[in-house]
């Protein structure tokens, strides 16, 4: 079971600061790809619904672009919360999102090493 306190601790985010304005969701560039949106992450963590979030594909759709972090009027930092949940998810045995075998198919000649490096950081342990 994922622990709400654990998520709050590693993210350093206090979901109680949220005033539920929805600006994070409004400003999220990847809104269309997500099942749960940034404000829902904040709300659901506050209510302890971590497992649902952890199982959701949305965790891997966040671009960590920090638009929500920069623009949140209350300084809640939803992207850090999402990253904490993703980190928890991929830290579990066998939960690497990006498997070594899949990588060759996803890269091409022009792709910078940086993409692979960042993806590895974000999607794997």
């Amino acid at each position: 079971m994922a622990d709400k306190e654990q998520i709050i601790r590693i993210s350093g985010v206090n979901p109680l600061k949220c005033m539920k304005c929805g600006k994070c969701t409004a400003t999220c560039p990847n809104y269309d790809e997500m099942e749960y949106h940034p404000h829902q992450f904040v709300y659901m963590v506050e209510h302890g619904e971590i497992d649902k979030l952890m199982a959701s594909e949305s965790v891997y759709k966040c671009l960590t672009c920090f638009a929500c972090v920069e623009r949140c009027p209350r300084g809640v930092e939803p992207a850090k919360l999402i990253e904490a949940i993703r980190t928890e998810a991929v830290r579990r045995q066998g939960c690497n999102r990006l498997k070594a075998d899949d990588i060759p198919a996803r890269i091409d000649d022009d792709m910078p090493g940086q993409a692979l490096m960042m993806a590895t950081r974000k999607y794997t342990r």
Partner: protein
Amino acid sequence: MNRIGVFVCHCGTNIAATVDVHRVAETLGKEPSVVIAKDYQYMCSEAGQNMIKDAIREYGLTGLVVCSCSPRMHEATFRKAAASAGLNPYLVEIANIREQDSWIHKDIEEATEKAVILGRTAIAKVQLNTPLTAGESPVTKRALVIGGGIAGIQTALDIAEAGFEVDIVEKQPTIGGKMAQIDKTFPTLDCAACILTPKMVDCAQNDKITIYSYSEVAAVSGFVGNFSVKIKRKARFVDETKCTGCGLCTEKCPQKKVPNEFNLGLDNRRAIYIPFAQAVPKVATIDPDYCNMLKNGKCGVCAKVCGAQAIDYKAQDTYVEQQYGAIVVATGFNPINIDAYDEYAYSQSQNVVTSLELERLMNAAGPNGGTLLRPSDKKHPKTIVFVQCVGSRCDDSRGKGYCSKICCMYTAKHAMLIREKYPDTNVYVFYIDVRTPGKNFDEFYRRAVEQYNVHYVKGQVGKVVPKSDGNLIVYGSDLIEGKRLVIDADMVVLAAAIEPDKSARSIATMLTASMDTNDFFTEAHPKLRPVESPTAGIFLSGVCQGPKDIPETVAQATACAGKVIGLLVKDKLTCNPCVAHSDELMCNGCSSCEKVCPYGAITYEEKGFRQPDRTTKMRRVAIVNEAVCQGCGACTVACPSGAMDLKGFANKQIMAEVDAICL
């Protein structure tokens, strides 16, 4: 021999829940010279006060200690009670066992122990208290109002109505303030100019009111009843007494490219200008930053066309010095700078405007003559998105922590007016909460929704992307439907937070009036003394004290005037008797005290002293003017011999307190 009475208040459960009040009374009752110690539910109640009065008479008390809430709350109450029972009110001491004990501690044992110590400390002090009698000082029967917006205007009119002289200092060339820029007022939708300008004219015509427009407060000295204020009259290069306000100069001036601040830069004015048609005083002003004559001596058109010969390019700033009994702060507000919120693209598109700009765009006297056209191409906007809480309700790193209070209502007003006038225009309002407490306010908002079909969306806008055709793609969340809206809008209107005018900070410093962390003036008591500053003789009117709408501002302005009148009707003010006093036998006459006195309350005289050998020796000694002394005590520490002491806070008394705490 001292006979001290101790009274311990329960304050309901406020104190009694954390402090064992019986034990406190019992323990303090055993202190030497305490002759009676009692506890009671509410010492400040009539029954409680009677208990004190009875004890004073019955036991012939020489000192009274009340263990209760902060002395800032009820010291005056208990002093009054003591006085009515024949005990000098300055023989009363308060031990603060609520704010500084029961409310901040959880452990009963600890809190009780502390209460006993605080009680003992007060007992130690009160034994050294001496009866004090307050002196008197005269009151200058004239008030100063700083700021000529609706708050300042209303306060000035009300004070003048009561027969007192009032001066208004306004830094702009005209009085009127923000209300003069507003089109219609909620919730009645009457025209702001129609209700404001008659009041402006009243000010001008009232012989009790003097308007110092285009002026600023330069220096303040003195104290309640006796302020002395230096007013800087900025050079307007037009003689106010000669100018007839005909406006010819403002039509002939060749410098046409000056951003018109009255229309928030949405159009231009000339270098010589009258801010708006109903300006008071209706006289022209030359803007030295743009006037060619003032900048390089090449022009002089206005002087040529002025039939009244009112133009004076050589004018200098002048100063007026005036005495006042009371000062009213009515410095008002401004919308914040919204550069930090450029996700709304305010800097990128002319079609993103603030609400105050929208007021001008919709105003008949505004740049478009009252027809709402979007600034970029003067087309009728078909879709308008309102964004609430821009910079309000933020955490400290992102903006203002407070709710600006007026935005919900003026946005409903804007939305309604647009829908009324242009029924084909779609209006969206993104809101976090709609806050409409106030008479007929929620009804007004509901009308916007139900009658005018304004689309209220619970959510916030996150990004505005301007397109080359002037349209704006607005991304906003609809939290109720759980989706994101993408709206192709013609205009976006931002409800920018409001903040106190920047000039307020320096005025607060001159007046030694305190401000909160947002630069709003602090009131003497948040509930019970809302229109007074903690600094005696300084009063607060309007938004300088906190966000307010027009009805509230006018209500507060009138309340403020009431307080000022209450002060000015008095011929004499009772002084604070806790003032400095110099023991002339000890005084060296060294002038150290005089140097640190902020009020100039200390003077010196040569005085003869009988010597043991029966000769008389002349010595220079300090004399304190008790009416002028405010009792800060700076002199007492500067005095090397200890001749200077402060009544009510004497060296011995404070030492006794120190001893009692450290016992």
